């Protein structure tokens, strides 16, 4: 018996396929294994992960690691993906000019306007002809506050509304003699200026309506008698209040609200013919992507120094330089993907944690170098396991071989390898020649988009939002899924999950999403992020890789890689490609592994010449191992 292990070192996981060769020359795969990649892909730190993955495969095959005769490595594609976000607008609200938050239980209804006054203030200091809006700090009990409001009214004052620090709006409303709008849970009530013109609005309950005066710039202009110039300035306030059930707007004398565009830096895209195109990042994703595709193939991309974009591109270059030992300026950025996005950001000068939606551009870049130091890894494994280690083939080629073991496939075939850092594609024509391409933008970019658009600021949670469907816990015993179906549970949910939006994890667990977003909103944001990155990249990759530059010519497209395990990405891509008449689906390597193990399997097949797994002769360039670095001297 002889044993051969194919090892694929990927960005996030290291996979092994273990082949047994019997004395009569028949080959059989006896085990597969998976372990997380240790260190950055393509560095010597990968060795412990590789050793661990091989040991796991040996264990499950019931053999000793020492019985493995040779280990086949892939030459990892020398690409690294990185992602970054550049905010291009910023709303600056100095002083407390608005309160746009949505307390769950405001009181009363309607629009009230008057001068802001502390509820405990001396009434004699105020002109009874001027309407007032009373401010109720947390030190004043609701019953006392209600009594004071009634006192103001009894003495002939026009109380137009109330702003309350604690969650007391309904309690106060139920105990006063006038019908006024009351907004509560204003945590930083002390920041509200006293003696200023103030407007309070609460939308009618049980009507499904939101406020309609303070979310309209002309409504605010009417309330405060603003000039056309002033009205232009309050547009961000009105926009931030759209959809709220209640709101407060205060006109401060020196208050200043403006929305400004931040200079976001420029991108220089240099194509292989040597000409350079320049795009300002704030022109948006469409313009950037158009410029990239007009200048294909891209030789390098540079960002303006001092800008976020410049910083991000330099970071990617620096980490690649460190891995390969090359000079930073010899590292080239071969592709970028840009996506327009909106980020909820806390308004500067807020009093109750208000947010405004700022525009931003998300960028993913792909850095390419000459070659990764694979021989170092090979030497490391050789000394750890005391076995022969061969760098058998190029990642993309091996992925094609492995994918062709999927039942129902044939050449010409294209594979889409969708990982965390990059989207790779390879195409094998009827002459068994393989062409491959690496594009930036994959799972990590989707995670970043979800993280920022939902305002989570938690990468781990954003990753979970990407991977799992969401649901709403409706009762202690039922949840409503994204599509509206209701599932009944055998055991009651934990009360802390009640009424919340949760993620349905694979192990049956529920993980709360700590933002007030419905499952429908989460689904919309999640799917839009996936569509903008993966569907867009799939079309881009296939268009670039086909010899005729028409994706209609490819009969088979096979999806592999970590992101093709996603519960909806493969179907979204299949759906988008269906209109071109392409058979597109998730790989099922060796008829049993799903989209996993394609490269590891391909490595083994390339070594044994295909065996009984491939029904064609492998051309020499696919079946001979690589000799790119000088052989090690013993």
């Amino acid at each position, binding site marked *: 018996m002889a044993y051969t292990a194919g090892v694929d070192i990927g960005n996030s996981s290291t996979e092994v396929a273990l082949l047994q060769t019997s004395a009569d020359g028949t080959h059989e795969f006896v085990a597969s294994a998976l372990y997380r990649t240790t260190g950055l892909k393509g560095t010597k730190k990968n060795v412990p992960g590789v050793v661990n993955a091989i040991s796991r495969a040996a264990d499950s095959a019931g053999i000793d690691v020492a019985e493995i005769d040779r280990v086949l490595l892939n030459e990892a594609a020398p690409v690294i993906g990185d992602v970054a976000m550049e905010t291009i607008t910023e709303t600056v609200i100095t002083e407390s000019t608005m309160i746009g938050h949505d307390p769950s*239980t405001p009181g009363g209804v309607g629009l009230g306007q008057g001068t802001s006054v502390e509820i405990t203030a001396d009434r004699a200091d105020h002109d009874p002809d001027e309407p007032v809006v009373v401010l109720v700090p947390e030190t004043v009990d609701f019953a006392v506050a209600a009594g004071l409001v009634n006192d103001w009214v009894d003495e002939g004052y026009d109380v137009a509304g109330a702003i309350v620090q604690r969650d007391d709006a309904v*309690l106060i409303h139920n105990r006063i003699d006038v019908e006024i709008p009351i907004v509560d849970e204003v945590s930083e009530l002390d920041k509200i200026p006293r003696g200023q013109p103030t407007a309070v609005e609460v939308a009618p309950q049980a009507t499904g309506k939101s406020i309609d005066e303070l979310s309209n710039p002309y409504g605010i202009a009417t309330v405060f008698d603003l000039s056309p110039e002033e009205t232009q300035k309050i547009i961000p306030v009105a926009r931030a209040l759209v959809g709220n059930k209640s709101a407060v707007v205060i006109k401060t004398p020196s208050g200043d609200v403006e929305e400004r565009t931040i200079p976001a830096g420029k991108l220089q895209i240099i194509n292989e013919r040597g000409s350079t195109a320049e795009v300002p990042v704030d022109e948006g994703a469409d313009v950037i992507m158009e410029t990239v595709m007009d200048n294909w193939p891209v030789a390098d991309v540079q960002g303006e120094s001092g800008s976020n974009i410049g910083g991000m591109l330099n970071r990617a270059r620096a980490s690649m330089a460190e891995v390969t030992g090359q000079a930073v300026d010899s590292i080239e950025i071969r592709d970028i993907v840009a996506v327009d996005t909106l980020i909820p950001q806390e308004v500067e000068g807020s009093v109750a944690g208000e947010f405004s939606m700022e525009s931003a551009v998300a960028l993913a870049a792909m850095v390419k170098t000459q070659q990764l130091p694979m021989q170092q890894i090979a030497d490391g494994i050789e000394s750890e396991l005391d076995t022969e280690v061969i760098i058998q083939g190029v990642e993309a080629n091996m992925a094609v071989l492995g994918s062709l073991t999927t039942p129902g496939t044939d050449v010409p075939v294209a594979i889409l390898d969708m990982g965390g850092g990059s989207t790779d594609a390879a195409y094998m024509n009827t002459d068994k020649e393989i062409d491959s391409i690496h594009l930036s933008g994959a799972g990590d970019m989707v995670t970043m988009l979800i993280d920022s658009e939902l305002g989570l600021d938690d990468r781990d949670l954003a990753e979970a939002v990407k991977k799992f469907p969401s649901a709403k816990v409706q009762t202690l015993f039922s949840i409503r899924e994204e599509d509206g179906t209701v599932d009944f549970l055998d055991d009651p949910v934990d009360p802390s999950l009640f*009424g919340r939006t949760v993620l349905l994890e694979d192990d049956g667990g529920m993980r709360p999403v700590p933002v007030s977003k419905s499952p429908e909103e989460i689904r919309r944001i999640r799917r839009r992020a996936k569509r903008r990155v993966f569907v867009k990249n799939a079309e881009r990759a296939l268009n670039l890789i086909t010899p005729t530059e028409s994706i209609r010519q490819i009969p088979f497209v096979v999806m592999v890689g970590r992101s093709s395990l996603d519960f909806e990405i493969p179907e979204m891509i299949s759906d988008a490609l269906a209109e071109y008449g392409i058979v597109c689906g998730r790989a099922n390597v060796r008829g049993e592994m799903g989209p996993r193990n394609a490269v590891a399997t391909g490595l083994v097949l390339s070594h044994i010449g295909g065996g009984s797994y491939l029904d064609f002769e492998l051309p020499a360039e696919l079946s001979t191992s690589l000799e790119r670095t000088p052989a090690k001297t013993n």
Partner: protein
Amino acid sequence: MSECRGPVDQDDDVPCVHVRCLGARDAEPEWVAYLEHGLEEEGVPWLVEFDAADDSVAAAHGAALESALKIGVSVHETRIVVHHKQLPDDEPVFDVSEVTASDARDLGSNAARLAKGTPLKSLD
């Protein structure tokens, strides 16, 4: 069961949360008032009843069974139990001893929120 009070009269058909005060009538714990504030702020109707029973959990479950909103609460001295009709009778949603005024109000809010289906306040 004896007298009732609250914004809902007993003959009224409005679905409401049932709050049951245990022990002697004249020993009505002050926590009931705080509990009621929580319910009132959330805008959910409730009904206060008096009962001489002394098992808080059983009383809360009994109240939940009678409540059209399926939510029952019992208050006994400084112990408040919030129960749901569909839960096993010995596994209440909340069972808090030595409540403070703000606990009592939060438990009132949570009893109301269980009926409304909105996320509960955390008790700490």
